């Protein structure tokens, strides 16, 4: 497979692995994919195939783009070993090859004018935030990053990340690095102090919901990057849906790979999301008369 012509800002490419470095519990991979590097914006993601035609794992795995270098033609991702697919990826080494589709989805939206922004990243969820912070900074925004994880080894970017932002706060559940507590804990104080109107959040669902609610309570808007199980990543299978309320007030089951992964926090129907399941709200467009 060779790279396909870019028809509409998305492509499939066989990427050489330039580097694979450990980063706490994660690995940071640098992939040579110039076609993707020139197109991507912060908050978009890529989908990697797991091995070749003889792999029993048929579906691609999705990863936020950590950063790109248009000059070097590289795309970086940060991968946690969470199962067989990510295990294969974390075992890739420089010189290996992997099929990559991207850039996918809608990324973060910048404020229309320079404003203070708060970024909240849980675990590897912080991966796309440094690149986002740098692009916000170029646009004249001040950037305040809260980095959190269960333990120090699950933090990503705690060492090098400070350079990308104006302020960085580190939190761990167990206090093994930074302050003890949840990543959303410093958020109210930070919102009050910075008068930020925008919160960018990436991490587990519970954290995204909390960030949305805290932002809302402070009159700010949250943009949340969700992580739904995706069979295709390109919008054709309808597995990755979430109930999202549109500007017209109507809730639809929307594809998080196409309309997301970044959604306005208040548009997400958190009320039907619990314990890894998402129900169809009764008022959703096309909802069955009686829920099955």
């Amino acid at each position, binding site marked *: 497979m060779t790279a396909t012509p870019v028809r509409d800002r998305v492509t499939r490419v066989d990427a050489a692995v330039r580097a694979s470095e450990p980063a706490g519990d994660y690995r940071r991979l640098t992939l040579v994919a110039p076609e993707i590097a020139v197109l991507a914006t912060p908050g978009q993601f890529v989908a990697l195939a797991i091995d070749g035609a003889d792999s029993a794992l048929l579906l691609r795995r999705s990863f936020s783009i950590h950063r790109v270098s248009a000059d070097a033609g590289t795309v970086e991702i940060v991968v946690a070993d969470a199962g067989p697919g990510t295990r294969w990826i974390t075992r890739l080494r420089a010189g290996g090859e992997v099929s990559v589709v991207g850039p996918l989805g809608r990324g973060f939206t910048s404020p229309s004018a320079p404003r203070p922004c708060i970024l909240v990243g849980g675990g590897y969820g912080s991966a796309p935030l440094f690149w986002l912070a740098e692009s916000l900074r170029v646009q004249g925004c001040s950037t305040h990053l809260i980095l959190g994880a269960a333990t120090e080894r699950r933090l990503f970017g705690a060492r090098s990340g400070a350079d990308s932002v104006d302020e960085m706060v580190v939190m761990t559940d167990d206090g093994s690095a930074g302050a003890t507590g949840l990543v959303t804990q410093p958020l109210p104080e930070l919102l009050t102090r910075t008068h930020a109107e925008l919160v960018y959040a990436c991490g587990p669902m519970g954290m995204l919901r909390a960030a949305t609610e805290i932002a809302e309570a402070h009159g700010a808007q949250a943009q949340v990057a969700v992580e739904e199980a995706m069979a295709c990543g390109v919008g054709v299978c309808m*597995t990755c849906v979430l109930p999202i309320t549109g500007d017209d007030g109507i809730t639809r089951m929307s594809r998080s790979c196409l309309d997301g992964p970044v959604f306005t926090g208040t548009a997400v129907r958190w009320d039907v999301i619990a314990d890894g399941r998402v129900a169809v709200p009764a008022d959703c467009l096309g909802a069955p008369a009686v829920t099955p």
Partner: protein
Amino acid sequence: MTEDLTTVDLTTDLGGVTLPNPLMTASGCAANGKELHRFFDIAELGAFVTKSVKAEPQSGRGTPRMAETPSGMLNSIGLQGPGIEAFVTTDLPWLQSVGARVIVSIAGESSEEFARVAERLVAAPAFGAVAAIEVNISCPNVARRGLVYACDPESSATVLRLVREVVPRGIPLLAKVTPDVTDIVGIAEAALAGGADGLTMINTLLGIAIDIDRQRPHLFGTTGGLSGPAVRPVAVRAIWQTHAAMRAGRIPSAPIVGVGGVRSGRDALELTLAGASAIQVGTATFNDPLAPVRVLGELAGLVADRGARYADLVGAAHPI
């Protein structure tokens, strides 16, 4: 590949309609075209098969809607879609605008709903883009307590008969059947007797995955449809049995559109040799968004290697 593939004769006949090549998307595995058109020109395919559409908008089921399984996956989408009205005003005109030959997949909870959807489709200004209608009878019949139409010969025939009444003769009807039956040839026979001009086989197999950590079914909807390379031997068997019955004169002859586990040109040829006149690529598209055109190119190479026309290879593995 030994020769210029553009000279290979890949044309295939689908109950009166001739397609330039046999490769198609599979319903529900390609949405309604725009998404894949970012990767390749969907008009290059023999036909583009749309997601099954019902009369009204459908939210589909809650999530998780999918579980990966060895060399396959389970899905439980619940036919999420915009409904036929939005389909004919938005999706179909777009498909027509890019020059795609369209096979519209229709579904319903009652045989009347199938007919209603077909009627609205036929009345659409963009109906000229429609090469055939695929009648997805592998979905639950509400009147029979959710029993799938294609599990029962009579219900299958009824749906086809009602749809046939409202669809002009020149438009072939393909009945899409499930392999989850004791006698697939009997269902095929009933669908043909009802008015189908061809068969699409197979839809997914009913399956379940359990989340062993949460100790509950993995899918929100409990059961899902199994698809992907894992099921290919079942698809080949269904096509083989049905085509064999046609060759033996036990049921009327009709084109079979093969689907199930096709990932490469070799797989497409396997279904063809078993008796399929056209090939749909479904789950493999999730692995490779270019799979439908890639498989087309690979198949063209294999047909060329054999110095054959595609049509000559249909059912060629049958001894008689």
